[in-house]
């Protein structure tokens, strides 16, 4: 019934660049982030971390620390009711040992990476907590470690975990690639390397936990996943309904707050002490120990016909999973599925492996494995185009996927594929070529396209729920358990509800991110939240609208199909109307609910056999194209970005301002990873634990990003929207690498694209090496 409701033909709110309700508070520093919370009698907590990348703990004595002034608790692994947390990784194709990816809450006999948590301290003041942490006696016996995935898979390598260093292995084989390569007119081979990257959010990991008056352990924490209340319960070995997670607005997540951070530690300490406890990681701590983006070594062999059609591709991916599994196997699956890019490739072989090392753990980060591959496949595309004398748009146009085509994994694309028009548009938007400003400067342009899944893997049976209801005065309430990471997640939900129910945005209140009080909405990851929770809110709002109109119809003496909701009134043809509060009072009298709780289930499916299979892995994909113009200092290798344009088909922009924000922010973050950012490790020891050495771009380093918001009107989200959270981070590194190649004739294959690497490639540093 709800689906039959026809919306007002011209949308009033959806599609408008409306200022978000949370923006002003943030600018005015009125938003209470996780670390802004305080409670009477609150303890301060800190984590003692391993200074070694690989060592045995031979002695761990907390006696002296526990006796220090102000100390309320010192915990080690033996104090943790259940010290291992497991994540299921379903749908594996190759048996590589137990796939319940485990991680330890606190180290037991061994530490496997620098910064691994060994003990927790809670004390009256932070200074006391830190002093006590330093007073914990730990004796380590350093063990040999392995710091590179290739070395980790070599015979005889030190084992990071007992079961061996191969964590996951995915394989796709489609078509007869040997035969196809034999027919190819050109074959381009390349090896590409990406680096460890940090999420580098403004807001470090932080939270406060307390035992509420009802005995429920309540944790107010900066997280993308409030449903980690279940993990807290598991570690504490208490029922899941005795833990509540409240997720306030975040100062950025980017995947770094998808795994648990402080919540488990806070739960342990609150339970032990019975007092409120606060934990805020320092920037150094965050840079040292938090999960990073996986470095990849990617070997590509691509064959094309003389006219430029790609005929075959062989891809070998190897990722560094760091010391613990976290989400590595899933990240690798995303890489495997997207490895050939948004192109038709009839014969493909993909081998993808990730291996444990004694480096920091790697896990989710914006782009989630579909990002590293862009650097490889778009560099390959450019080289083939160059080899055949085809311009960057032409080679992509010839090979672009269309609706009805299938990806190497066999998934058929069912919605519009905005290729190649996105490529054409960004390339044109660069405008006329500017002349070089000096004799030592060369100008170049590069193009890169990508595809990024939105929504979770179909065999994970994703769902989201939302509650929408009217108050008696006609104001509207939305309840939905989304964490808002700063992308305007909550605000877009208001816009959707207000659109369907005919009220202004200022009449909507939204309650988000509370595992006890808001309907669960799943994770704010995988570019899924607008898609999933937007659909849940849309469904709830449509049902509520139907409920209301059914009551109003007899009051106005017309059929409900003849009614509309506009500006707080039910209106009939001919201008007759009833204020919504009048209808609500009638609902109350008749026992008709003035709210609706809806659950949206994403299209589900069974795990596919990647190797042979043809099947659906993700609900759908978002496509994009970016173009960059750079100036190269041919005497120093310095790269200056002059112009940057980014286009994505978002299906429908619910709030174009938020969409532009995602495109611009994603592009800048991608440029940071392309040009500047790198976690530098020496035998597992992190040399970049401050923002003076881990360099993220400043406002002076990037030109304005021109965002082209393309709306095909096709997508699986509300009003046909597609996910846009992750896609824009994919293309920048490749676009810049291609622009550098255009300017200089030199191709860089290792990220980040530093001036020194370019200088070396240009031969300015003498012999190569």
């Amino acid at each position, binding site marked *: 019934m709800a689906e039959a409701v026809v919306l007002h033909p011209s949308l009033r709110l959806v599609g408008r660049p409306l200022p978000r309700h949370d923006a002003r508070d943030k600018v005015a520093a009125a938003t209470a982030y996780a670390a802004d919370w305080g409670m009477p009698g609150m303890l301060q907590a800190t984590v003692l971390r391993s200074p070694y990348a690989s060592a045995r703990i031979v002695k761990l004595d907390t006696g002296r620390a526990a006796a220090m002034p102000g100390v309320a608790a010192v915990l080690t692994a033996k104090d943790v009711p259940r010290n291992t947390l497991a994540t299921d990784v379903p749908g594996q194709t190759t048996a590589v040992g137990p796939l319940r990816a485990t991680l330890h809450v606190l180290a037991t006999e061994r530490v496997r990476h620098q910064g691994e948590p060994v003990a927790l301290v809670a004390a009256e003041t932070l200074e006391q907590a830190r002093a006590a942490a330093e007073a914990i006696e730990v004796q380590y016996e350093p063990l040999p470690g392995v710091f590179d995935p290739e070395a980790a898979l070599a015979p005889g390598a030190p084992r990071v975990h007992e079961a061996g260093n191969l964590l996951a292995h995915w394989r796709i084989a489609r078509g007869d690639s040997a035969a196809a390569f034999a027919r190819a007119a050109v074959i381009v081979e390349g090896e590409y390397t990406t680096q460890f990257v940090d999420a580098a959010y403004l807001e470090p990991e932080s939270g406060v936990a307390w035992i509420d008056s009802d005995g429920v352990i309540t944790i107010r924490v900066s997280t993308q996943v409030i449903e980690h209340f279940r993990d807290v319960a598991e570690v504490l070995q208490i029922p899941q309904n005795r833990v509540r997670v409240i997720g306030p607005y975040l100062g950025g997540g980017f995947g770094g707050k998808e795994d648990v951070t402080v919540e488990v530690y806070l739960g342990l300490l609150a339970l032990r002490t019975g007092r409120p406890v606060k934990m805020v990681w320092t920037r150094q701590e965050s840079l040292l120990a938090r999960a990073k983006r996986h470095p990849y070594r990617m070997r590509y062999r691509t064959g094309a016909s003389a006219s430029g059609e790609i005929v075959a591709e062989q891809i070998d991916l190897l990722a560094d999973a760091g010391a613990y599994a976290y989400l590595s196997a899933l990240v690798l699956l995303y890489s495997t599925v997207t490895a050939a890019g948004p192109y038709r490739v009839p014969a493909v072989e993909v081998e993808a492996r990730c291996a444990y090392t004694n480096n920091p753990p790697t896990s989710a980060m914006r782009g989630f494995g579909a990002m590293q591959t862009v650097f490889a496949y778009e560099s390959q595309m450019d080289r083939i185009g160059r080899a055949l004398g085809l311009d960057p748009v032409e080679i992509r146009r010839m090979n672009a996927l269309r609706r009805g085509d299938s990806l190497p994994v066999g998934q058929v694309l069912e919605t519009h594929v905005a290729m190649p028009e996105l490529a054409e548009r960004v390339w044109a938007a660069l405008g006329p070529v500017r002349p070089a400003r000096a004799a030592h400067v060369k100008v170049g342009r590069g193009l890169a396209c990508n595809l990024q899944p939105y929504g979770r893997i179909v065999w994970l049976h994703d769902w989201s729920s939302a509650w929408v209801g009217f108050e008696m005065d006609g104001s509207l309430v939305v309840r939905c358990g989304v964490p808002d990471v700063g992308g305007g997640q909550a605000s877009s939900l208001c816009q959707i509800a207000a659109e369907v129910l005919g009220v202004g945005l200022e009449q909507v209140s939204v309650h988000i991110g509370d595992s006890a009080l808001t309907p669960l909405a799943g994770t704010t990851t995988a570019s899924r939240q607008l898609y999933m929770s937007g659909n849940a809110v849309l469904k709830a709002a449509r049902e509520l609208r139907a409920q209301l109109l059914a009551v109003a119809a007899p009051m106005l003496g017309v059929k409900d199909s003849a009614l509309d909701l506009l500006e707080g009134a039910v209106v009939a043809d001919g201008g007759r109307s009833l204020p919504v509060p009048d209808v609500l009072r009638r609902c109350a009298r008749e026992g008709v609910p003035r709210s609706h709780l809806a659950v949206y289930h994403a299209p589900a499916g069974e795990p596919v056999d990647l190797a042979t299979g043809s099947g659906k892995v993700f609900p759908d994909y978002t496509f994009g194209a970016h173009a960059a113009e750079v100036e190269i200092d041919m005497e120093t290798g310095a790269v200056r970005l002059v112009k940057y344009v980014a286009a994505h088909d978002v299906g429908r922009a619910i709030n174009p301002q938020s969409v532009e924000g995602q495109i611009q922010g994603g592009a800048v973050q991608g440029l940071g990873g392309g040009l500047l950012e790198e976690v530098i490790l020496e035998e597992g020891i992190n040399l970049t634990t401050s923002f003076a050495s881990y360099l993220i771009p400043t406002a*002076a*380093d990037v030109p304005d990003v021109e965002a082209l918001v393309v709306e095909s009107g096709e997508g699986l989200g509300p009003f046909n929207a597609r996910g846009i959270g992750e896609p824009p981070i994919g293309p920048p590194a490749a676009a810049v690498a291609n622009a550098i190649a255009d300017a200089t004739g030199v191709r860089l294959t290792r990220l980040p694209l530093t001036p020194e690497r370019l200088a070396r490639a240009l031969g300015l*540093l003498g012999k190569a090496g």
Partner: protein
Amino acid sequence: MSFQYHEPVSLAEAVDLGARFGADGRFLAGGTDLIIQMRRGKVAPRHVLSLHRVPGLDAIELNGSVRLGALVTHRAIERCASFQGRLRGLVEGAEVVGGHQIRNVGTVGGNIINASPAADVVPVLLALDATITCVGADGERTLTLEEFLLEPGRTARRPGELLTAVRFAVPQGRTATAFLKAGRRRAMEISVVCVAARLTLDATGERCVEARIALGAVAPTTWRAREAERLLEGRPLTPEAMREAGRAAAAGCRPIGDVRASARYRRLLVETLVPRALARCRKRFE
């Protein structure tokens, strides 16, 4: 981190307190180096002596020579109209320090005493043959900036001594200055290499009569490229002469390799940026 905080209200009181606490005390100017070092536990002064209520330390005086009070901020140098001509290089050094917030509070005195080999304003002052004045228990003394800088993080300042001013002659005649910085980022960035140059030409505008080239981040202290200077002095300022100076500077410097750049790349930057800084000076004569 616990310490006693003092706010002397006169120069005499500041010098007094400095003398009293000696190595246990630290003067606080903008705090953009000191506070970070204290938080990281690199220094742990028991007494912090703020200079903000000491009158006159933030003055810029020009009469024949330039006197920069130790508390003059990078922002004040950037904004000083008298520096836009022959002292343009000084402005160029100051305007790339950190970001706006850092320049609003960071001082020239702090930049000198912190003695980072990568400091941005120090090379320009070195190229201007600056002297510094310190006041301590034994009274006032004046040293050349070059002899004052000893090694990374260390100057010839005696414990408790207060740096009061930097002084240099106002450049005359056909003189120009320039400063260039190479870094990975365009703001909030420690120099990978920086170069300051001062050139004076003879009356005909042909021949170089005096040259100064000072480099940051290529040696344990900010470093004068004397060999390169000698190659220029007394010769016409041709592109070839400037390139030769660059090569000489690159050969003579002693850079390190670290996470920001290798030693080899730093030499390449020296070889490239020295002639560019000289060319910038020459352009300023036109």
